[in-house]
């Protein structure tokens, strides 16, 4: 079943000082099926974050349509958008975005509490923290954690509401290679449990964990690669090939 649909998405930034516009996305079209793990790749400045922010409703598209479960997100009011974000979407960011004033437990509870959906929160927390190996960290504060640990906490926070789709913007961008591969295998694990994931990255190694990779350039989806039943190694080679051939090499 199609979960997310992006049609003719266009995003322009108008700078206020000089009267010129930057077209970050010109015409983006793609669909995401339920249970897919998709990576979006592109050069720095190619509009990956812009695309993700539009899907995340953190940014308003200039034109086009984004729908999740047949609900057009571009037509919702601010209040409904906020509710939509916390009920249906989960986020993981490059810089973790944890609140320093709250303990790890409270950081993970945050979306549930904002949604006034606190029944059974302890069970959900236990379950997730066991899976992510962060049980011993629950009473600490974010500033006491390493980057990899913070990102696990951020994943727990994103998943505690059982989101329809998990959105991740360069989730391994601030991590060393060991922590990166751990986070990516966590993504793969959850994907095996049919969690839909949309990840933006400029690293082909990260993208190689996905089932499908979309390449964007000049504000458009330029090309895509399916993993099929390739191993991660083979997928990595395919991605690198695609980049050298199609984009002129960026890795």
């Amino acid at each position, binding site marked *: 079943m199609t979960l997310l649909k992006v049609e003719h998405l266009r995003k322009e930034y108008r700078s206020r000082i000089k009267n010129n516009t930057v077209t970050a996305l010109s015409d983006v079209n793609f669909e995401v099926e339920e249970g897919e793990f998709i990576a979006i790749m592109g050069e720095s400045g190619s509009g990956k974050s812009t695309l993700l922010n539009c899907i995340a409703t953190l940014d308003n598209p200039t034109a086009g349509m984004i729908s999740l479960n047949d609900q057009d997100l571009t037509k919702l009011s601010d209040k409904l958008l906020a509710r939509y974000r916390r009920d249906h*979407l989960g986020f993981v960011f490059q810089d973790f975005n944890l609140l320093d004033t709250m303990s790890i437990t*409270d950081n993970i509870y945050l979306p549930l509490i904002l949604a006034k959906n606190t029944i059974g929160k302890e069970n959900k927390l236990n379950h997730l923290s066991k899976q992510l190996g962060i049980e011993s960290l629950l009473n600490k504060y974010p*500033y006491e954690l390493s980057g990899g640990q913070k990102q696990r906490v951020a994943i727990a926070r994103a998943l505690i509401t059982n989101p329809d789709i998990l959105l991740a913007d360069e989730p391994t961008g601030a991590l060393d290679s060991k922590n990166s591969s751990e986070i990516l295998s966590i993504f793969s694990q959850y994907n095996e449990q049919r969690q839909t994931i949309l990840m933006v990255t400029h690293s082909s190694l990260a993208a190689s964990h996905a089932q499908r990779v979309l390449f964007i350039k000049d504000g458009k989806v330029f090309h895509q690669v399916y993993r099929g039943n390739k191993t991660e190694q083979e997928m990595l080679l395919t991605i690198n090939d695609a980049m050298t051939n199609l984009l002129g090499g960026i890795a």
Partner: protein
Amino acid sequence: MLYWKLAWQSIVKNKLEYLPFILAGSAAVALNLIIQLLIYSKGVKDLIASVSVIEMLSFGQVVICILSIIFLIYTYSFLSKRKQTEFGLFNVLGMQKMDLIKISWRQQLISFVLITVLGIISGLVFSKVLILLFMKLVGGNNFGLNISGLPILFVTIFFSVCFLCLLVKDVFSIIRMKTISLLHATKKGDSEPKNHWFLFILGIGLLAGGYYISLTVTSPLKAITQFFIAVLLVVCATYLLFIVASTIVLKLMKQNKAYYYQTNHFITVSNMLFRMKQNATGLASVSLLTTMALVVVVTTVSMFIGQEDYVNQQFPRAVILKKTNHQKNSVQTVHQLADKHHIKIKNSYSLEISSEIAGYLTENHKIQPLTDSSATSADGLSEIQFMTSKQFAKLTPSYQKLKTNEVYIYDRQGTFKEPMITFLNKTYHVKKILKRINGIPSEQPNMTHSMVIVVPSKNVTNAMGDIFNDLGDRKQAITYQNQLLFNVFGNSKNRKAFLKDLSQLPNTTVTDKFSTMNALKEFYGGFFFIGIIFSISFVMATGLIIYYKQISEGRADQQQFDILQKVGMSNDEVKRTVNSQIIWIFGLPIIIAVMHLCFAMPMIHKILQLFGIIIGPMVYITTFITIISMIVIYYLIYLRTSKTYYLQVSRKIS
């Protein structure tokens, strides 16, 4: 030219910090200038009590000067933090420290010129209004201001010295600057504050101590010394409690899971826990400044309003003639003089009351002569006047006859409660303790206990003068003096001439309500004016402190609210959270200040008694109005602050 441009750009870029700094600075300049102009004005020189009024204004000037300096330095520290990061960047981009200093002094010069010019202009404009207010309050009638260069010069020099200090401070911080540490404005994790139960209990103890002293103070004289102890205790307690109690309360809230894990409370409580740690001392200072403003208003208003009551009590009639010997006032002579000056005399009556004797009231209600040792302690000291029952009957229609061993007692302080009183080796039964005696003028206010004893006849007091001497060494026989009291009607010129003639009568002292009232009005009016200026500056200062704190926090909290919004907080919810956080920061000091004021009231009451002033309903009304207007002012600053804060932390969706 480049330096000027960079300096100006930096000011414009940081206008959120610069604008209030410049406004507050101008207000400080204006206030200083206005007081200077008043001191040099013709109207003030023409006042009867001009010397003491000028002294009072000069005192006000000194306080305002000190406040201005503290305030400029405080607000500038916020600016300076912003500037440091900017200068760090310039430094990385290849500017030398010398270049930065060149930018810095230009900025300092620009803000100095802006502040003094704005301040002097607004000072001159508002001085016209304020001299009207001032003269109304002190009852003067010359509203002219002679605007000379001297006050302007003074203000300009004073503030250029202030800015020179700021510049020196700037130069030092540039010289000490380390580039790396500036660029990475170190955002080290703030650990959760700990509970300090010992300090909490200490704080509660100090507060209770301070309040207890105020509630139990008995004599006005003791009130003054104890006032300082109480203030000291309360000041310490306020700081301690803001620092410790806030953490304890918030942690208790946090431990109550059912309460804590509600959408409204969750973010507010966890934020406030960290916020209070940074804000505790600031908020405590704000509370104390607010309390100070309220106390100043209460006392000055009480004095200003109370003076009339007080004069009225001293003068049951407008003029009092007192014979200094045993003779009676000649009513006929007075009437003749009145006719001569076209003055009408009405409601006149005469009364006879003894001169005051000073005695010592023992535990077993005995009046004893003063000894050297008892005279030095205030306890038990009492000034006593006698009045015959015959005289008393004239003043009080529902008079009940006294037996030879009975007296009435009118105690001005209301502390005498004994059934018996003994003097000159004879014990009298106190038939009644009177609340007042109609028609007798009250005495000059002072710290000693004083009472009037109504005795069956003059004979019982004859021996008084021989044993009891006045506080000084001169022996004085007790005399019953005749007083003539009357109201006068006529124009003020005639009245003055009439009073002058009266004072020439032999063995007579004349006191009149009009001149007493005028002198007092000038004094208390000046006092009141200074009080208003002080409270305005206190309130302005506190409002600005909060504003700056919030703005700098808003910048720090930007990221936090960004995260919250990404996770699913709507703009409305952000607004509500921001408001509920900031309202605490504004509301708490007012609540604390009002609480402090309530507990200080008994003490203020006692101290004002020293000045012969009783706190009446008018004072409560003005206090109430002051609190309300303070809340309104704070509310306006609050609206401004929460709006700016909200704009800083909310996501700007393009």
